């Protein structure tokens, strides 16, 4: 009987195993091996990693991606932090409507989002014209096709995701804590500084790591906005592997491995933080 069950289990898992090995495990192993090959592909070397990290052309792409991810995540998380607190102060019915609305807009990303921003803030965009008419030149230094533009677009897709992830943690702060704190004479600021913030801090860090990873891996938005001319890690990888100008496929693998490691690091950080949140709230 036991034997039969085992046989059946193996049979049932077979299709899944074949697909996962063929399209996940094997390709990842192949890519890692590939990242240690030299340009001719006939010897193992660490040179690709040295090039990726020290050649300014490639390391700049990495730094650009890191910076843009950090900035957009910081701005996005600040907006989300304030907004999700405001949401918790609304009646329950209104709360669920707002959360639904925010989730719906989170589908508006990638190419459609880049396109919408071109309509709004591009060279002949709605706001660009409006501000010109009004004679405001604070925005004359803003250019959608530059860093500030890219950050503005990235922030847009970070906000709904941040709200989605942060909103549930506020429910961990119980009303009774606030009441007891104010009975003991704590001001609103003192409450948040000594009680509220420490309680939600792990989920802020966790959410930050998700937003960071989200921006780090983003490709379509930047690609639709300026094509391959931005120096971002994802765009560099894509052009190294499939591009027509310079084709150094092994270096592409190396940079893909580095990016993959960064993402896995961010996800592990999130998981650790979330475990802490769950323990604290118990």
């Amino acid at each position: 009987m036991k034997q039969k069950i085992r046989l059946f289990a193996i049979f049932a898992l077979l299709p899944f195993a074949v697909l996962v090995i063929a399209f996940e495990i094997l390709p990842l192993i192949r890519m890692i091996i590939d990242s240690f090959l030299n340009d001719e592909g006939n010897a193992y070397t660490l040179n690709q990693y040295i090039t990726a990290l020290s050649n300014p052309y490639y390391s700049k792409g990495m730094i650009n991606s890191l910076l843009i991810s950090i900035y957009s995540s910081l701005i996005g998380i600040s907006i989300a932090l304030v907004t999700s607190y405001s949401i918790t102060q609304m009646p329950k019915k209104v709360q669920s409507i707002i959360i639904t609305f925010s989730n719906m807009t989170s589908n508006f990303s990638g190419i459609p989002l880049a396109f919408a921003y071109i309509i709004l803030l591009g060279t002949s965009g709605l706001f660009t014209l409006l501000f010109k008419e009004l004679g405001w030149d604070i925005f004359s230094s803003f250019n959608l096709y530059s860093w500030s533009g890219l950050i503005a677009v990235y922030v847009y897709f970070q906000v709904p995701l941040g709200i989605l992830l942060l909103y549930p943690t506020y429910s961990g702060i119980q009303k009774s804590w606030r009441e007891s704190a104010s009975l003991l004479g704590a001001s609103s600021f003192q409450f948040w500084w000594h009680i509220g913030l420490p309680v939600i801090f792990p989920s802020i860090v966790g959410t930050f790591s998700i937003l960071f990873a989200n921006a780090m891996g983003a490709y379509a938005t930047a690609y639709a906005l300026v094509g391959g001319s931005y120096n971002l890690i994802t765009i560099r990888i894509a052009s190294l592997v499939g591009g027509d100008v310079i084709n150094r496929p092994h270096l592409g693998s190396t940079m893909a491995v580095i990016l993959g490691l960064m993402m896995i690091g961010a996800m592990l950080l999130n998981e650790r933080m979330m475990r802490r949140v769950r323990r604290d709230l118990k």
Partner: protein
Amino acid sequence: MKKRMIHFLVILMIGLYLLLPVAATFLYSISKMWSNTILPSGYTFSWYQELFTDPRFIAALGRSLWICIISLGLSILTMVVTVFVITLYLPKLERFFQAIVMLPYAIPGVVAAVALIKTYSSGPIVISGTVWIVIGAYYIHILPYMYQGIRNSLRTIDAKRLMEAAEVLGASKINAFVHVVLPNIIPGIQVSSLLSFSILFGEFVLANMLVGGQYETIQIYLMSRLQENGHFSSAIVITYFVIILILSWMMLKLGTRLQNKERKEQVS
């Protein structure tokens, strides 16, 4: 009361901020001409008419639907059985299994595409540039969402005890699974399938890097027409967004029905 106003204002502002790009795109898609003026100078539906009579658009839509349905179908067929067997009969493998199915969540599209191109553009199996490699990539891409949905459903219905009960009453394992467990987890599978479907429908990087223009999906079509005519492109964007909205609305309805059902069962 004053505090409430501030919170209300914050939400209103963020709501407008989030709505603005969608609204502007919509307005653009129904305007005749819109250059050098703040508001469009005339309204028309001709861009939509042009879009829906464009055979290239219809073909791209069809291709997108086709690869999404194939990969999703493959996922449902294999994942339901796999998650069921692992959680009930091979709990020792659960952690290892979890690591494998959650890994794609951390791997960005660009990296996955590189790995797949490396493996399948030379060697014994060459399927790079064909639709099969995209289907494989999509299958992996939605693993985390399918897994979570199916596992949560199995947990809420307490599949282990259901199976035991059915077997005590004389059902074979396969019968118990098909007639007792499966009908109970179908709503959960529906929700995660819709989520996976909308993710795949909006996917660009994998499709573009793996097959590109040879197999034009809706997103690749949008990208290639972006430079041509703004009004026309906004009609594509809005059509795409409406499809996604319908999918998420269905998901929401199914999800709340599921929750209500669970609540009722807990009460009774």
